[in-house]
């Protein structure tokens, strides 16, 4: 395992979620589920983060914010869409101000479904994300060596 996948830092952004998924993301980080014991820390700074947890669907106003946060994160990075809204737009898919899931804005690696997403599903998503992070960092090293 690489260094990042031993203790990945996450950043969370609420695109246009109803808060249900947000508080579950926070609950996963807090005692009760306590992913912090695995070294997973919530950071506010995109430049420190390895995993991007997005909740809620994107709209015209926040799509640029989601893209900006993603662009500011350094490679390798993984995106986990938390909740049905983030996966596909969910029950709000036909609202006039909803463009759809987060994959309309940025590439998504893991989809964690649920309305609201359960903390267990988030943890499961993050564990899958770790594998992807590992692969991405290997590929990155490989391409650097070749260059």
């Amino acid at each position: 395992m690489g260094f990042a996948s031993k203790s990945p830092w996450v950043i969370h952004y609420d695109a246009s979620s109803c808060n249900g998924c947000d508080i579950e993301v926070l609950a996963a980080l807090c005692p009760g589920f306590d992913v912090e014991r695995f070294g997973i820390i919530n950071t506010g700074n995109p430049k420190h983060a390895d995993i991007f947890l997005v909740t809620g669907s994107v709209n015209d106003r926040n799509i640029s914010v989601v893209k900006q946060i993603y662009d500011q994160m350094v490679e390798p990075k993984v995106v986990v869409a938390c909740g049905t809204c983030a996966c596909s737009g969910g029950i709000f898919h036909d609202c006039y101000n909803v463009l759809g899931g987060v994959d309309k804005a940025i590439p998504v690696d893991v989809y964690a479904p649920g309305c609201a997403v359960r903390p267990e599903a988030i943890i499961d998503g993050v564990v899958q994300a770790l594998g992807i992070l590992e692969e991405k960092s290997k590929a990155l090293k490989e391409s650097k060596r070749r260059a």
Partner: protein
Amino acid sequence: MGKKSVIPFGPQHPVLPEPLHLDLVVEDEVVIEATPQIGFVHRGLERLVQTRDYNQFIYVAERICGICAFGHSMGYAETIERLMGVEIPKRAEYLRVIWHELSRVHSHILWLGLAADAFGHEALFMHCWRLRERVLDLFEKTTGGRVIFSVVKVGGVQRDIDASMLNQFVSVLEGIMGEYQQICRAFLEDSSVRNRTSGVGVISTERALDLSMVGPFARASNVPYDVRSLGNGAYGDLSDFQPIVSSNCDCYARMEVRAAEVIQSIAIIKELAAKIPAGDIAVPVKGAPAVDSEACNVVEQPRGECYYYAKGNGTKYLDRMRMRTPTSQNLAGMAVALNGCDIADVNMIVLTIDPCISCTER
């Protein structure tokens, strides 16, 4: 005198769980003007009443906000019941209020945690959220969901809580009381917390009334307004209800009010659990709201008064559904409280109104 500059705050910010953007005009570290900008979570839910019938809309109403989820589904259902003249069974009213007060307990403990995080006390944040999990367990046992419950329907509730479960409610809530009071002592008696919050973001009672502030934010400025004292539904059967107020008018007072409201809610749950009548939990609702029928309703959400309006048009689809949420009332108060504050206190003041942006923008 320094030069004026503008500091953008949000929408993505470590203390903000939700996207709110503020343009802070600062001069020498002092905020002289704060302009909130919203729109990041607008989805357009009110419009959905045109494509979902009044029974289906309840799941949309619940998802207006994941923290006050129960309150919204209850407020919406009550509005529709008034619109169609449906009388729901007493037991359903009691069950709704019990769950609603339990949501207030979870919401206020959640907020206390976020406030602790805002003044940099991470251990206290974790302790609050640990306690909150115990409350969520009760929800999960009785409704199956942790934050979105889907338990209210037009005409009553979907599930009953049996007597042994009600006893468990009471015993779990009594069980967390000791720990909760310890946490409250840290909030209310610790000198560093006091220094951080006393005298910060003061709004006088007159100003609070001018700005039509609602909820704990207003009650902390000594405005004794609480929708629960109107006695709607099972609230009317309470032996006594007094809104909790404080006259300090600052961030400390807002903490004090919310901390005391948790204890008040627990007392309400205990009283209603002892008094709950037996009987049905729902009545069947058939037909459609009449043409041009109108109904409105107010509910005391954890964040304050929330107003609902519905208009029927003779079909199963409503003509109009409108809500006015507590945070949209309180944003003006927040902008006033921010004027003249230290830049370091901005996050504290923003949090003490307990902003719920996804309610506000829907």
